[in-house]
């Protein structure tokens, strides 16, 4: 499957290269060849910036300058383009090549600016239609029934886990939670396409990857409650999971810092000649960070085997993508760094699975980074500290929650194969729900980490000043036991 993708990608590149650098002996001023070989694709149409105009009610949620821009952009692009404006900026002209640092470039006598967009948006790879039927002619990586069913049940588990933990926060039992509603296919399908040795550096909306690899509901609950079984020893807020054993780096709050880190980890794998890659996840908002630029640029130069997986879910808290960037999403940026990229329907489990499977193979066998942009929608609020109905319409949220739900879509496919039934569905949901409620009860009752854990792990070995402080703290607790909570171990 990957071989197909490789062949396609490299022949595409070869074609483009040939167009850009035709043989030098063919001067166009002598008549002969028309300018068309220079064109990379269809002539640019007036760019379609962002989504089609919204109905008035929804436009009210957009900032003022946003709607003005989308009209101004169109006219300026139309002014800049000729009727045959080539995408790569090379019009017919002298065939002589100029030598500059970086290589040879062809001359052009006409002054043409590259348009700000390709004209048409980069198309989106999809396997299943909205009713869960494979689209005719679609090519995808096959999955066995066993893997397909595991994918489905983990998507359901993730959904139930999110709902119940969210409720637990609302009830005051945990302090914070963050859901992956609407992004279950991204979470589970991408994880399913990876191997256990691949290193995962998440942002924070990818607990499904950990779930796929074997993190139990109890382990999730322990971290959220910060009890003494939490692998994080109660050091972090809920949802900041991590597991060395499962090759999943502990979630860290600053945005996009994991991107250059993933490149470093990938470089380390390459130096060790491991049959594994690094994968790092981030949202549309994260691509604005400087670390995004540095990581992609660097990964290309270092030829690091890393998958950059962007969950473009349309929102960065209250900032819609129209205010986050003006490019055609994230996939177009890959080429700017010399990185191969693909845009995929993030709510299509099979498409995500296929894309990550192919990306992984290319990354490892060719030692290169790959950019995957999964289009999706953040159905839930940003977190329990957010109420997204304040900045986006409720019916927009409802539409994506129901009509575009990745889980029900995938279920239709699985049921269409006679691999799943309604009775199995209710049995699964009941079982997971019960197991989760049990895990929460257990986690809630477990004692918190003891006071020693306040002072360990600052350094590899505990320094003398912290040892002293711990002793002072203990002495104080001994002296005033009534002021110290009884349920916190010393």
């Amino acid at each position: 499957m990957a071989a197909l993708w490789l062949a396609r990608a490299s022949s595409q590149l070869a074609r483009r290269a040939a167009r850009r650098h035709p043989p030098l002996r063919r001067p166009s001023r002598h008549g002969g060849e028309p300018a068309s070989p220079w064109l990379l694709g269809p002539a640019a149409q007036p760019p379609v910036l962002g989504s089609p105009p919204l109905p008035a009610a929804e436009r009210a949620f957009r900032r003022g300058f946003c709607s003005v821009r989308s009209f101004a952009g169109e006219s300026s692009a139309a002014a800049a383009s000729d009727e045959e404006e080539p995408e790569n900026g090379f019009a017919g002209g002298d065939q002589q090549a100029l030598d500059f640092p970086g290589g040879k470039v062809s001359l052009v006598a006409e002054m043409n600016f590259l348009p700000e967009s390709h004209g048409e948006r980069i198309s989106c790879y999809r396997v299943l239609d909205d009713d869960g039927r494979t689209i005719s002619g679609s090519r995808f990586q096959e999955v066995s029934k066993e893997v397909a069913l595991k994918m489905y049940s983990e998507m359901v588990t993730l959904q139930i886990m999110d709902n119940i933990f969210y409720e637990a926060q609302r009830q005051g039992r945990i302090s914070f939670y963050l859901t992956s509603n609407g992004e279950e296919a991204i979470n589970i399908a991408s994880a399913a396409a990876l191997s256990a040795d691949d290193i995962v550096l998440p942002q924070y909306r990818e607990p499904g990857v950990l779930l796929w690899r074997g993190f139990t509901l109890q382990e999730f609950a322990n971290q959220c409650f910060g009890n003494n079984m939490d692998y994080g020893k109660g050091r972090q807020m809920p949802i900041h999971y991590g597991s060395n054993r499962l090759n999943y780096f502990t979630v860290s709050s600053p945005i996009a810092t994991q991107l250059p880190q993933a490149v470093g980890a990938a470089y380390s794998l390459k130096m060790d000649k491991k049959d594994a890659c690094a994968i790092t996840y981030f949202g549309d908002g994260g691509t604005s960070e400087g670390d995004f630029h540095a990581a992609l640029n660097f990964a290309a130069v270092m030829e690091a085997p890393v998958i950059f997986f962007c969950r473009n879910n349309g929102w960065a808290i209250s900032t819609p993508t129209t205010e986050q960037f003006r490019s055609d999403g994230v996939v177009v940026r890959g080429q700017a760094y010399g990185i191969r990229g693909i845009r995929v329907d993030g709510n299509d489990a099979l498409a995500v699975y296929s894309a990550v499977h192919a990306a992984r193979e290319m990354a490892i066998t060719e030692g290169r980074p790959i950019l995957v942009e999964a289009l999706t929608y953040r159905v839930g609020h940003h977190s329990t500290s957010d109420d997204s109905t304040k900045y986006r319409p409720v019916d927009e949220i409802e539409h994506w929650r129901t009509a575009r739900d990745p889980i029900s879509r995938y279920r239709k496919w699985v049921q269409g194969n006679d691999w799943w039934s309604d009775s199995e569905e209710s049995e699964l949901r009941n079982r997971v729900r019960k197991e989760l409620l049990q895990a929460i009860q257990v986690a809630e009752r477990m004692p918190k980490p003891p006071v020693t854990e306040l002072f360990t792990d600052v350094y590899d070995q505990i320094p003398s000043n912290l040892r002293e402080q711990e002793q002072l703290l203990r002495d104080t607790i001994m002296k005033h036991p009534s002021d110290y909570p009884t349920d916190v171990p010393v």
Partner: protein
Amino acid sequence: MSADPSVFLMGEEVGEYQGAYKISKGLLDKYGPDRVLDTPITEAGFTGIGVGAAYHGLRPIVEFMTFNFSMQAIDHIINSAAKSNYMSAGQISVPIVFRGPNGAAAGVGAQHSQCYAAWYAHVPGLKVLAPYSAEDARGLLKAAIRDPDPVVFLENELLYGESFPVSAEVLDSSFCLPIGKAKIERQGKDVTITAFSKMVGYALQAADILAKEGISAEVINLRSIRPLDRAAINASVRKTNRLVTVEEGFPQHGIGAEICMSVVEDSFAYLDAPVERIAGADVPMPYAANLERMAVPQVDDIVRAAKRACYRTVPMAATA
């Protein structure tokens, strides 16, 4: 690098150029481009990448052309390196070294002259070292690379060019210094002078001048800013009863402030005079040579401070 294949160096100009200050001369030829990496100009990028490599078990040495440029990467140093072991409860260790010239050079202006010792020493999870002599540089850098925790290694551009006598023991390949231990560069009994990096040399010169006036100064080369060798500092102050702290950096919230507090906490009764603090002027470093001279501590400033601590009459500061 020869002892451990997981150690590698990355930074701007460290390879082909042999190092911006020639510190990595010959390393690219000896170890190849896999272990000596010339990076694009992105401190945030290569620091993040270095931390990621350390997460996975390599031992990177990340060079900043000066620590002023580490400001573009400080999020990765603090939030990705310093705090990771704690936040991950020991699952993610970061055996990384951040090194480069720190503090004032000569005539390079404000954005090339700041001392970052106080910035990094403020953070739990980091270790901060500042060598003075060649012995310090060799022994402490070895220790830093071997240490499992992230270490900030503050060198000094002007000291790169200075030669120091070294013993045969120092030249041995196994020579290593402990982290967290200061060195008494010069024994004395009347006043303790603490310093680090280039200021150690100034303090020693000041001690020579003071000796001629009958004041015996004990000069402590801190070597380790975090952890600070509080035991050595306090033991010295309990002996001399007077303290002058010297640093090149800005005075507010500086190293001297921390040393003073440590002595007040542990040895207050032993002080016979208020603690004197010598630091750089509280202004961004000016460029003009005369102004620069006035913005950094000079030997004379240290001499006067020591005399004030000894209750000798002292003339007003002369203009530079």
